[in-house]
């Protein structure tokens, strides 16, 4: 390799000076624009099927609606029931005779976050949707025998207890496309609906960006129980539902 020649002309000195400046610019650029390590695993994290999968009841319902053919729906059911791998959520698809939304189990997406889980949930819209769910004539409050805490524990792998006074007050669990990996319950307190959303803390950290407009008139309260993240959306100035969980 040849040694670089020393400048013996003002123009050469200028050129060296420019090279040094260019090098300084490049170094500053690399300092200010470092690629986050998480970029190197983006595809693995985001690829659908690599993590989350659609809840079986949602797959069934969607397929049946699209097909609109009794035979096709029956075929899909027979395909999904015996040969599908055991889902993480213990609860199976709600039967048509399910008495209330209490039997309808969220979340829309099970397991680790995947396609759709990155959408930023609009909490005000979520609140309105869930308020409507609660007001539905089909909705009744969960009783002690609904094992809501056990369902959440099974879904998110985090043990959780529900205080006895919650029995008969909480409606749900619901699922929402607005926040696909969340399980949602609601309750009426002081004449207003409060909405409680549960999801994994790790999911929230990597893949959920909550949005709540300042003029929504709603407040957001949060609680972490191990890796379980609980968020209460409420028009009240203090949380009412978080206290039920411990």
């Amino acid at each position: 390799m040849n040694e670089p020649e020393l400048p013996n002309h003002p123009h050469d000195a200028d050129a060296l000076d420019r090279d040094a400046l260019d090098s300084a610019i490049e170094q500053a650029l690399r300092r200010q624009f470092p690629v986050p390590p998480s970029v190197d695993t983006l595809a693995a994290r985001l690829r659908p099927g690599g993590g989350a999968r659609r809840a079986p009841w949602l797959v069934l319902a969607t397929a049946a609606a699209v097909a609109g053919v009794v035979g096709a729906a029956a075929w899909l059911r027979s395909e999904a029931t015996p040969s599908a791998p055991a889902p993480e959520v213990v609860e199976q698809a709600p039967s048509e005779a399910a008495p209330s939304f209490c039997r309808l189990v969220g979340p829309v997406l099970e397991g680790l976050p995947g396609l759709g889980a990155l959408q930023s949930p609009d909490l005000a819209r979520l609140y309105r949707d869930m308020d409507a769910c609660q007001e539905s004539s089909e909705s009744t409050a969960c009783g002690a025998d609904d094992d809501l805490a056990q369902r959440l524990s099974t879904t998110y792998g985090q043990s959780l207890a529900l205080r006895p006074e919650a029995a008969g007050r909480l409606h749900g669990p619901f699922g929402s496309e607005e926040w696909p990996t969340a399980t949602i319950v609601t309750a009426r307190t002081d004449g207003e609906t409060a909405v409680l959303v549960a999801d994994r803390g790790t999911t929230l950290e990597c893949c959920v960006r909550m949005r709540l407009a300042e003029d929504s008139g709603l407040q957001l309260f949060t609680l972490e129980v191990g890796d379980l993240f609980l968020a209460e959306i409420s028009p009240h100035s203090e949380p009412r539902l978080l206290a039920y969980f411990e």
Partner: protein
Amino acid sequence: MTPSGPRPAPRPGLSAEEFSARFQAGARVLWTLAAGLLGDPAEAEDVCQEAFLAAYARRADFEPGTDFLAWMGRFVRNVSANELRKRARRRTLRTDPVLLDQDEALGASVEPGPGPQQLDERLLAGLRELGEVPRTCFLLRTLRELSHAEIAALLSIPEGTAMSHFHRARLFLRARLDPAFHGAKP
């Protein structure tokens, strides 16, 4: 067993595995593309995630044999443009005097002062002054060492235009950083 009826035509596009592998191979370039268009590395990953999801859903539209990065670049550019539009709307609503004070403080921070930190501040200020496309050309060439042809494909511009943007950006940044550079030298 004999097949009955004509076979369906092979589906064009990419399988989930092919798409993921190609995306990952170009993820750093796509991140840099987003960072350049936004002028901010902080939100580039979010843009890449959204672009991934949008492109994944359309992966059947990809024509085999064509430039995957150029195809992905369209998604990144569209998502970035949406993000910039959102920002513009947010800016027009900004009336909080505390935030306005912060803006003034940011402006003041690029005034001359000793040290390499000032070099970085000058660089960021200079990059903000550059347009989106020249800034992106400069970042892709300097950080990812792409050819002008590759940059042109990513941005859907002629190769000569990509080259011109890069050189103009370099001259501009040299002029902006030269005083700070000489001030920082021992």
